């Protein structure tokens, strides 16, 4: 009897860290973002089904719009395979919008900006972190939260200038031999990214 209790306790102890480790973000108690009519109709057409959840119910809650101008900008910098900055408070970011480099400070007017390949820098006091991003979108919300979603990004110091030059030459060659529209577009994108990268590295 005692032995069984000891085993049970040991098992519980083993299980506890596993449960804590579980990363699953349990749906918070957010009501579904639908009207009652929608719910009723769902019940009518599918009486035996559990009502589904919606992405907004899994989302991290966002801060409300503050009354006064905040001193810091909250940045979410996300990639498909990684969250680089998660609600980090910084002084300023500069993003490579298609219309030119765009600085974002706290209290920036709400904006949707398309990004081109280029340098994104994050300013935090006197510290500046630079990333090369491959294009995507940046949203600035009224609550001084900036979301930067890009397909890929790396810190600037991991690039090898030789490889970049080689890549640019390759895509230039491809561009001249491309026959279909898709191939041409692909080569064009390659040239764009590589030449932006070269100029970011200060080499062109």
């Amino acid at each position, binding site marked *: 009897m005692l032995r069984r209790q000891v085993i049970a306790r040991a098992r519980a102890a083993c299980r506890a860290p596993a449960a804590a480790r*579980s*990363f*699953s*973000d*349990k*749906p918070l108690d957010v009501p*579904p*973002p*639908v*009207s009652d*009519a*929608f719910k009723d*109709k*769902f019940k009518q*057409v*599918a009486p035996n*089904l*559990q009502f*589904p*959840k*919606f*992405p*907004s119910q*899994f*989302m*991290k809650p*966002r801060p409300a719009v503050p009354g006064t101008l905040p001193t810091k900008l909250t940045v*979410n910098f*996300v*990639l*498909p*395979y*990684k*969250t680089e900055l*998660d609600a980090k408070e910084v002084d300023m970011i500069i993003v490579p*919008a*298609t*219309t030119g480099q*765009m600085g974002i400070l706290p209290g920036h*007017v*709400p*904006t*949707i*900006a*398309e*990004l*081109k390949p280029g340098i994104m820098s994050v300013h935090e006091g006197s510290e500046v972190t630079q990333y090369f991003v491959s294009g*995507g*979108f940046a*949203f*600035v*919300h*009224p609550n001084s*939260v900036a*979301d*930067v*979603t890009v397909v890929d990004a790396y810190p600037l110091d991991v690039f090898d200038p030789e490889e970049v030059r080689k890549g640019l030459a390759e895509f230039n060659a491809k561009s001249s031999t491309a026959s279909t529209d898709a191939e041409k577009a692909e080569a064009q994108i390659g040239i764009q990214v590589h030449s932006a990268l070269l100029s970011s590295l200060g080499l062109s």
Partner: protein
Amino acid sequence: MASSSARNGVSRLSHLLSKAAPVAAPSLQSPSWQCPGLAPGELAPFGTRMASSQIVRNRMKSVKSIQKITKAMKMVAASKLRGVQTKTENSRGFWQPFVALMGDHPDIDTKKNIVLTISSDRGLCGGINSTVVKLSKGIFKLLESEEPTKYIVIGEKGKMSMIADEILKNVEFEAIRMVYNKFASVVSFIPAVATIMAPELIAKESEAGGKLAQLESYEIEGGDSKAEVLQNLSEFQFAAMLFSASLENACSEQGARMSAMDSSTRNASEMLEKLTQKYNRSRQASITTELIEIISGAAALEAAS
């Protein structure tokens, strides 16, 4: 002695039978469940118990090999899950900015609809495919309008990017409802519906002050026109959502397969236990009967002499 004769009882009996009943011609091949050497339809005088123990033994063998397979599948699913789980966790930030920007409007009123169902590539993974299919049917009925709603089902390897392209280019839509299983834990997944709106709908709703009225306050930078940026934005959102939903679904698939295979392994071992018991019992019974036969025969001989 008795047990060894019981073990090769079938061959011994067939030898006896071929003498006693030479009618058992090759053309009258008995079905496998019958005692070998018996004509079909004929009552088996002896040997039935041997045959039945043979059947049980075969059954045990097949259950054992099925158990091995399910166990291996469970192991494979467990190791795959570990990789996919990390990837899924890391991808969870990617779609959130879009929902933060445009909100989540599954009940938006649209005419041209697409229901995009994300299912798994392979079977034997519990109930995840039936959940999404049932839910898609429900959503399909829910969206009924003058224009027919279209179904697109994803569930074959490596066609994800092609499908995204295909949809964006060739299918006219106002909104896509993406049905997938969100991974919650190894043993549970949550059916979920994500909504992606076409750029025209986004523009219409924000200008008319509909559900996306707050979008009107945003300044739009880049591109030649607002429509172009919205087009890119909507496509990017679709890709991000599809990426994340298929990862979530793959993760749920491995989790569901793991628990399904675990329970079938357990079922197989239970069944094996029962079959072993049955087999041993019938073997014991046949040995006992044979002993009784021998003893009573000896007793009868003794009485005669």
